[in-house]
């Protein structure tokens, strides 16, 4: 533990670094869970346009991986990424406002649920084109290498995304150029309704790393600390200049692929399977683990604080104004497109 600290320890008066790190992990996992629960309610009440992909059940790997980073490291997410920016340290107010399409949202209402990004904490954007974030993460790592800083980029992607060409191209370039990137496969067993064993011949996605001369590991994604340890090691390797690592976290999403009635009567997975995973809930498991080092009262107090933070985020989002219609026409270009009338030359 303690390899990386990407939060302000000073607020945790009287605690050891390890204790404060554990509590911060617990806090962020709680935030990810309760954020998505709030989104679910908003969705059910018809408040969210479009779709929402929740990561309830996956909080262990989301937070465990992000907490292994430094504050100035980069992170790239995907379509199921409300939790990733939270894990990376983003405030929940602007994320919630974005979900509701408000002008105070992280993307000022232009991105929404599938594209949350808070660049101020190194969250480089979530791309909802499956797999497309992989080479972008490699590019950020190339940028760090060229700039001579020691930032690391963490790239989340799903088991489904591992079948895109992007995955292979990204792994190859990252290994070839020894780039400081950590690939974190969130293997939740399914891409929409297709189980992994009907999309890939090998059960373990991590096995593919060998084809690129890249080390890999498999971790229990429901165990936040196991993920944290594996990613910490991968981050250290990347920071040393020794290149990428692939970490595969076996995990599960409790909800269907996305919210709404579309999947209600689908039988692609069994109730028993879901129930079995719920017994290994990442928050419950983590609470049990913390029992020795952190007082139960502190954990309860933390739960309460998270509840208040989410309530405040909802309040903030609700109270925030919608963007003005003319805002639809901003941000397309950074260098404005101006047309200067032609010049006469002799060609």
């Amino acid at each position: 533990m303690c390899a990386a600290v990407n939060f302000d320890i000073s607020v945790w008066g009287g605690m050891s670094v390890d204790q404060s790190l554990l509590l911060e992990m617990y806090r962020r996992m709680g935030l990810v869970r309760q954020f998505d629960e709030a989104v679910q309610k908003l969705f059910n009440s018809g408040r969210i346009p479009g779709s929402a992909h929740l990561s309830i059940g996956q909080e262990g790997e989301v937070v465990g991986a992000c907490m292994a980073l430094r504050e100035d490291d980069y992170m790239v997410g995907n379509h199921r990424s409300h939790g990733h920016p939270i894990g990376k340290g983003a405030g929940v107010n602007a994320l919630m406002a974005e979900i509701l399409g408000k002008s105070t949202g992280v993307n000022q209402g232009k991105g929404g649920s599938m594209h949350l990004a808070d660049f101020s904490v190194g969250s480089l954007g979530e791309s909802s084109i499956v797999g497309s974030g992989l080479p972008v993460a490699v590019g950020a790592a190339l940028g760090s290498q060229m700039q001579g800083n020691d930032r690391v980029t963490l790239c989340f992607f799903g088991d489904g995304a591992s079948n895109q060409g992007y995955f292979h191209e990204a792994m190859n370039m990252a290994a070839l150029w020894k780039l400081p990137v950590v690939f974190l496969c969130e293997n939740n067993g399914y891409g929409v309704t297709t189980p992994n064993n009907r999309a890939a011949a090998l059960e373990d996605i991590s096995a593919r790393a060998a084809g690129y001369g890249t080390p890999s590991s498999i971790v229990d994604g429901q165990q936040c600390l196991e993920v944290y340890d594996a990613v910490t090691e991968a981050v250290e390797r990347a920071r040393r200049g020794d290149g990428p690592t692939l970490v595969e976290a076996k995990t599960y999403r409790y909800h269907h692929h996305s919210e709404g009635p579309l999947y209600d009567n689908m039988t692609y997975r069994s109730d028993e399977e879901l129930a079995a995973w719920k017994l290994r809930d990442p928050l419950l498991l983590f609470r049990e683990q913390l029992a020795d080092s952190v007082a139960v009262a502190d954990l309860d107090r933390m739960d309460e604080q998270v509840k208040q933070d989410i309530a405040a985020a909802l309040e903030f989002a609700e109270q925030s104004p919608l963007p003005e219609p003319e805002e639809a026409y901003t941000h397309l270009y950074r260098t404005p497109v101006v047309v200067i009338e032609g010049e006469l030359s002799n060609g």
Partner: protein
Amino acid sequence: MANITFLEAVAQAQREEMARDESVFLMGEDVSGNVYGSSGGLLDEFGPQRVLDTPICESGFTGVAIGAAMVGMRPIVDYTIASFMYLATDQLVSMAAKSSYMYGGQTHIPAVFRAAMFYNGGIAAQHSDRNYSMYMNVPGLKVVVPSNPYDAKGLLKTAIRDEDPVLIFEDGNLWGQKGEIPDEEYLLPFGQANICHAGSDVTIVAIAARVGESIKAAEALAKEGISAEVIDPRTLVPLDTATILESVAKTGRLLVVDQGHRTCGAAGEIAAMVAEKGFWNLQAPIKRLTAPDMQIPFSSALERGFYPDAAMIALAARELIEE
């Protein structure tokens, strides 16, 4: 003044910008080896990281360029042949064009994507694309089509300093063409058309290598007493509509010349723009000269005649005058 080729002009622009700004780097297949001739000497001067040979994976390395741009680098991606951009089109459209907008201006992608159009050379359907029009349909991209060495250098330098993704379509038929380049530094702004040949009877808007053919046509027409004005838009996005409309207001006739395919092409867009905004100035229907909506054949016996040349342009202009 120096008399150099289009390709040498491109190489100069890249060299000067890489020397000026260390965040500028070149990437693509075989760039260090200078296979196509636009990166000679760069490896020695800037080293293998800033003259970065990539594996053959256009979609992946385009994503890499975009990621690097997000964290402050300024990549120049060389696709060599424009047909290979199709593999990269997901990244160009979904990431490069959309990131600034979709993330509410938190980021932007200052990257240049160079692609050469190798049509009219007997390399058949899969290597002969003139595909700039497709990318005009993607808000967030800028599309540049230089027609001579001077423009190639000035526009590329502007592209490298631009904060947005810029696609530069170089006409392979022009790579060897020579032109005068001033010794002092210059940049050419985007969105400013070039009136290459002034005239008052008919406006000819031409793209890339069609500009040279149109100038030849205008010179031939002049001998017959027909005064043609040839306009090179230089950049299709942004498009200098004002210059085109002013010219049409004067001439009352518009011929658009484009080596791309006809349907949904640049010529169609320019024609529609003039039909909407300059209709009452027109004395004759607008005419388009384009490549046919047909794949590009291998045999030169078949490919010949696909792209409007000076004679075809002059003929079309005469027909317009007679209407």
